[in-house]
C-alpha cells in the first residue's frame, strides 16, 4: 500500500477496508467464519492473554474451524482478564471473561461449535459513539 494522497483517497480507502474486513468476516463460508478477539493490553497479557490467544489459534486449527483470531486493546474488564470477544456469524459479539486454557476449550466446544452460551459471559454495559 502506497501513500494516501488526499482526503478523497482516504475516504475511498475507508470504504475499501471496511469491505475488506467485512469480506474477511464472511469469507467463503459465511455461516462458519468465527471471529475471535483477544484483549491484549498490558493487563490482559499480564493475566495470560498471550497463552490464551496461542491456544485459541491452535485449538481452532486442530478442530478445523474457519476462524479469524486477532488481538485488540483493553476492553475495560480488568477484573476478568483475559477477556475474549467471540462473534459467531450473524450473531452479536459475546465477551467472555477469565479465559484460561480450560475456558478456551469450553468456548470452542460449547459456544463456537454448538452455539450454547456458557457461564462467564460479560454483558457489554456501554454505548459506543455510533449508538
Amino acid at each position: 500500500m502506497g501513500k494516501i494522497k488526499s482526503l478523497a483517497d482516504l475516504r475511498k480507502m475507508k470504504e475499501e477496508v471496511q469491505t475488506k474486513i467485512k469480506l474477511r468476516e464472511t469469507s467463503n463460508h459465511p455461516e462458519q467464519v468465527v471471529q475471535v478477539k483477544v484483549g491484549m493490553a498490558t493487563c490482559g497479557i499480564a493475566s495470560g492473554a498471550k497463552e490464551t490467544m496461542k491456544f485459541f489459534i491452535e485449538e481452532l486449527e486442530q478442530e478445523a474451524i474457519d476462524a479469524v483470531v486477532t488481538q485488540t486493546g483493553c476492553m475495560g474488564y480488568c477484573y476478568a482478564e483475559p477477556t475474549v470477544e467471540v462473534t459467531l456469524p450473524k450473531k452479536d459479539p459475546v465477551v467472555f471473561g477469565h479465559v484460561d486454557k480450560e475456558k478456551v476449550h469450553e468456548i470452542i466446544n460449547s459456544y463456537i461449535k454448538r452455539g450454547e452460551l456458557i457461564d462467564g459471559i460479560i454483558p457489554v454495559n456501554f454505548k459506543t459513539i455510533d449508538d
Partner: protein
Amino acid sequence: MTDYKMHLLICGGTGCKASESDEIKNRLNQFIEKHGLEDDVQVVMTGCFGFCEKGPIVKVLPDNTFYVQVKPSDAEEIIKEHVVKGRPVPRLLYTDPKSEKHVSDSKGMDFYKKQIRVALRNCGFINPENIDECIARDGYQALGKCLTEMTPEEAIKEVKDSGLRGRGGGGFPTGLKWEITRNVENDQKYVVCNADEGDPGAFMDRSILEGDPHSVIEAMAICGYCIGADTGLVYIRAEYPLAIQRLKVAIRQAEEYGLLGEDILGTGFNFRIELRYGAGAFVCGEETALIHSMEGLRGEPTFKPPFPSVSGYMGKPTNVNNVETLANIPVIINKGAAWFSSIGTEKSKGTKVFALAGKINNVGLIEVPMGTTLREVIYDIGGGIKDGKEFKAVQTGGPSGGCLTKEHLDIPIDYDNLLAVGSMMGSGGMIVMDEDDCMVSIAKFYLDFTLEESCGKCTPCRVGNKRLYEILDKITQGKGEAEDIERLKELSFVIKDTALCGLGQTSPNPVLSTISNFENEYLAHVVDGKCPAGQCKSLLRYDILEEMCTGCTLCFRNCPVGAITGERRQPHYIDQSLCIKCGVCYEKCKFNAVILT
C-alpha cells in the same frame, strides 16, 4: 449446532450472587426440567451486568427481556409465563422512574448502559497494530477534514466549542490552550503528548495507547496543524513497553500511508512524531517538569509563567496535552462540537475515563458522561463493594485528590463539583475503600507516595510533606496527641499556600479531606488510642481471657517473640511490652480465649 431456542442469562456478579442468583439459577433449571424444556432452554450465569442496584438480573434471549430484582420464588413464573407461554412478566420488568412505565427494551436495553465510550471507542474493538482497522472506523478522517476543509482557526473553534477540558488533571480548556499557542509567533513550535501517567491505580492513558494509538497520533497532527507545529513528541514512561511498541508500529504505518511525514494528504502540511522516554517520575507529569525531562534536565517544575505555550520545549512554544484529551479530538472534529457538548454537564463536557480500583467488584476501566454520579459508577458499573462490605470512601484525583464519602455519592461527577467538595478530577483514578480501611492510614499512604515522588525542589513539598507524613505515622502508631490534628491542618494549609507546583499544592488534600470527613476516626486514634477500622497494628491489643484459656500452650509455642507466658493447664498471659501484634495467638487459639480490642 444445538438448537437452544432460548437462553436465560442470570447475573453472576458478586452483588447479585449475594442476592441468591445461584438459587435462582437452580430454581430456573428445576422448572425447565419440570416442563421438559432442557433441550430448548439454557440457563447461563454471566458476569456483572452493571446494574447491581436492581439486581439480581435475569435477561432472556433472544427477545432481550430484562428482569430486575428477581427472587428465587419468581423462577416458576418466568418459566411458566415467559418461556412456555411467551408472555413477559410485567411486574419483574424495570420501571422507568420518569415515565413510571415498565421497560422491556428489546433493542439492547440501553437504559442500564451508563457508559459511553468516546475516548475508548476503539479500545477492544480494533487490532491496534493494523492501521486498516482504524481507518475502517473513521481513523484519520478528522485529520483529513481539518487539512482539507477547515482552517486552523475553524478547527480550534470546533475544539473550543466542544467544551473539552484537559483530562490529565488540570481541566484547562483544550481549545483555549491551542489558541494561545497558535497566537504566539515563532518559527518552531511543538506538540507534546503527555503520556507520563502516574496516578496510583490509573492506567487509561496506557490502555488508549495500547488499544488505539492512531487516535492519539491523529489528534497530535490535528493539533500541529492548528497551532502551526510540524513536530510532535510523545513523552511516555519507559515502563510502558507495550504502549511504546504499539505507538512505534502505529507511527510507522501512518508514515507508510503518508498520514505522517511530508505533504500529508497532498495538503502541504508536514508533521512528524518522535518518542521521548520518561523514567516514571510522577512529577514529570507536570508540564514544565516534563519539558525539562525531555530536554535532558532534572525533571523538576519551574515557576509559571512563562507557560509552555509561550516558552516550552527548547524555549519554543509548546502545546502539552494528555493522552485521553487527545483521544477525544478526532471525534469532536468528525461528529462536531455540538454532538460532543451534548454529553456532560454545563461546565464539563463529554465523558471521562475512570480506572476503578480498590475494594470494588468490577475493577477496570470505564468511561461515563460527565455528570454521572459516584453511586452510579460504584454500584451500577463497578458492581458495588467487594465481599458485601460497607462503602466507606472513594479517593478521586489520585494523591492530589481527596476522599469522598457516602454523603457525596449522589454528586454528579465533574471538574467543578469535585473541587467544591475538596477533591479533584485528576487523571481519573478512583480508589474505593470499605469499612476495613483506616482513613488515617489512607492519608498516610498517599503522603508516602507524594514523598517518594516529590522532586525536592521547594521546601513545603520536600520537608513539609515529610513532616505531615511523620505526624500521620505517629498517629497510626498510637503516639499521636490531640494537637497533632490541628498541626496537620495548619501545616497542610501552608503547604497548599506556598508549594511551587501542582503536586505540592495538592499533596495535603488527602490529609485535609480525611480530617474533614473522618475527624472522629482521627480522634479515636489520638484520644482513645483505637483504630476503628482495625488497620493500625500498634493500636490493637491482644489479651487472653483467663476464664476461656485451657492452658493448651498452643499460643505460647507459636508466639514468635516469646510474649506469652503461662504453665500448662494454667491460664496464659500476653506481655504487652513484647507483643508485636502479629495475631498468631488469635489465629491459633482453639478456644476463642484470645481477644482483640
